[in-house]
């Protein structure tokens, strides 16, 4: 084959995105700041979760927290906001900044823009945290009106989202600059994947932005007296479901683009990895009504259409299942693995980063099954707002995502800080305890849900609890206890790692970037181009959300003031 035209040959450009670029010290610090906030949020939020699980079997520890935490629900609000919104968002934005720089092999094109975005998020976090801690925003992380939180809570969350937008613009501009310098070269997958996620997030968060700016913020400031709760729900779930993919896609970046390298293999299909991400860009957003199957005020036809679209968003996850497992099998067989499933033993299970992510992926298979059930229109009647739902999303956001992020941090934190991981054995035990604790916890929650136990309820105090729930409630507590031990171990590993001495550069972990089996250059151009996919996303959104959203806005009834006194 002969080399035609200007572009460099593969040997010239490969090293630039295959691990060659080392982030500068300030860049490492910048990414590290995101992770620091994320991990602190995770630690605080995760201390609340087990208290809820203990309450289920009648062990109420909240009175002991009285000066700080006044109630089960204040704890639950902290747990939801810190774990589901803050830990995830800060980790994701930090990780995307990392994959953008490392993947493209260059600095951010507008570092001050990204710094501004980061500090906007931090200011937002502080503004959100103060009302939660002073018990004036005990509205849970869904903040359904007419539960009225302090205005600072809404403004703070808005700033977190706006900050993440600004950082996203920084990533786009960086990609654009890279493309100018690398015409004809496929953009490196880890960078592209993160940036597609950032693009999806910009579209998805329009719902909650409109909800807060046109309804909740003016209402909490006393500028308007009433809300339209059903419209607020539609706005919220416009953002609420793609939020799930916003959490998940960075884990997918690692599973597709890094984990194969960590197990000594390659990415099985670059084309399908990209196709999956583009599909997520298109179908992540117009699915929100599947959270509103049991809502009055939304016609059945739209619910059914969103059920169909939710089924289609399951498809890229099915592709992911194949591609990721095949990438792992490829690596395992290269390392001498044999047999139909015997190769699994040839994976580096003793590497805590690998083990955490493999275990996360196993739990996610069950999370996926539960998710498909939730999305299945009438089937939602069996489980909507029961304990099944938190059981489900603890397999997704709290396992597939959180355990993967923990696994990533086991090499990323040492890389960024120029250290080695403290006690990989402890980290390994941490991953396994998370896995075991989550199996016990979430299985019990799923069963409770099928039996009819409501979610968001301190079941230890409920008078309607029948005898047959008790064993499962106890299992929830046991799972929660194991998870508490696990999250403390995670905190210890992180703190101890940061307190070890820096080591020589060659001893610091390298960044695992998986090459595809078939060169990315052979991937068709249409799988590396934003425009057609963004147009498709906008069109589908217009079709799937437009009519019902316009109808609800047109017929908006601001008539719900909420209760006279604070209900919590």
């Amino acid at each position: 084959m002969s080399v035609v035209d200007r572009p460099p040959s593969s040997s010239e450009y490969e090293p630039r995105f295959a691990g060659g670029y080392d982030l500068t010290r300030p860049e490492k610090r910048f990414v590290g700041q995101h992770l620091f906030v994320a991990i602190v949020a995770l630690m605080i939020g995760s201390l609340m979760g087990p208290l809820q699980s203990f309450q289920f079997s009648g062990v109420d520890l909240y009175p002991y927290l009285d000066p700080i935490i006044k109630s089960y629900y204040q704890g639950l609000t902290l747990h939801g906001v810190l774990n589901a919104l803050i830990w995830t968002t800060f980790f994701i934005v930090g990780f995307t900044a990392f994959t953008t720089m490392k993947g493209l092999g260059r600095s951010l094109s507008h570092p001050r823009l990204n710094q501004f975005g980061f500090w906007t998020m931090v200011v937002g976090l502080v503004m959100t945290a103060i009302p939660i801690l002073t018990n004036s925003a005990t509205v849970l992380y869904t903040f359904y009106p007419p539960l009225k939180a302090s205005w600072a809570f809404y403004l703070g969350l808005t700033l977190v989202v706006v900050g993440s937008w600004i950082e996203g613009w920084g990533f786009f501009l960086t990609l654009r600059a890279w493309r100018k310098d690398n015409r004809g070269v496929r953009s490196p997958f880890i960078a592209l994947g993160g940036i597609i996620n950032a693009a999806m997030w910009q579209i998805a968060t329009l719902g909650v932005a409109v909800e807060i700016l046109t309804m909740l913020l003016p209402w909490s400031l006393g500028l308007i007296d009433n809300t339209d709760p059903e419209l607020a729900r539609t706005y919220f779930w416009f953002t609420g479901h793609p939020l799930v993919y916003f959490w998940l896609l960075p884990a997918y970046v690692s599973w597709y683009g890094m984990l194969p390298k960590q197990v000594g293999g390659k990415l099985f299909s670059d084309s399908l990895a990209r196709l999956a991400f583009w599909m997520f860009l298109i179908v992540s957003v117009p699915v929100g009504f599947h959270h509103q199957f049991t809502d009055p005020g939304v016609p059945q036809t739209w619910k059914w259409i969103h059920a169909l679209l939710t089924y289609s968003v399951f498809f890229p996850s099915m592709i992911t299942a194949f591609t990721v497992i095949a990438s792992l099998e490829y690596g395992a067989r290269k390392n001498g693995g044999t047999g139909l499933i015997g190769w699994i033993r040839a994976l580096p299970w003793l590497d805590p980063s690998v083990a955490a992510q493999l275990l996360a992926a196993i739990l996610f298979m069950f999370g996926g099954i539960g998710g498909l059930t939730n999305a299945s229109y009438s089937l939602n009647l069996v489980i909507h707002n029961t304990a099944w739902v938190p059981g489900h999303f603890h397999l997704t956001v709290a396992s597939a995502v959180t355990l993967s992020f923990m696994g990533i941090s086991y090499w990323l934190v040492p890389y960024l800080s120029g250290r080695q991981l403290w006690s990989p054995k402890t980290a390994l035990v941490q991953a396994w305890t998370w896995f075991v604790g989550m199996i016990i916890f979430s299985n019990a929650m799923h069963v409770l849900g099928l039996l009819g136990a409501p979610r968001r309820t301190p079941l230890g105090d409920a008078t309607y609890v029948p005898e047959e729930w008790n064993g499962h409630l106890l299992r929830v507590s046991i799972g929660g206890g194991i998870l508490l031990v696990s999250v403390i171990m995670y905190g210890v590993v992180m703190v101890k790692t940061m307190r070890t001495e820096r080591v020589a550069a060659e001893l610091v972990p390298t960044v695992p970037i998986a090459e595809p089996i078939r060169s990315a250059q052979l991937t068709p151009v249409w799988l590396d181009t934003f425009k057609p996919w963004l147009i498709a996303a906008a069109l589908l959104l217009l079709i799937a959300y437009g009519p019902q959203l316009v109808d609800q806005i047109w017929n908006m009834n601001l008539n719900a003031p909420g209760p006279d006194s604070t209900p919590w």
Partner: protein
Amino acid sequence: MTGSQEPNGDQPVDSRAIQVEPEAEEEHFRPNGTIFILILFVAALILLWLSVYVILLSRGVTV
């Protein structure tokens, strides 16, 4: 599935111009174990999903 089969014109340089290493022994890798795991996954999916469906059918009509 999605998208057109047309190459998009946004990228000014044709990627074929770039030399690419031919695929080597990887071509012979057939992910049999993957298929096996996924068959187990689909079996679990069908079983668990159907069990909820059966619960749904047993709990009556809600017109």
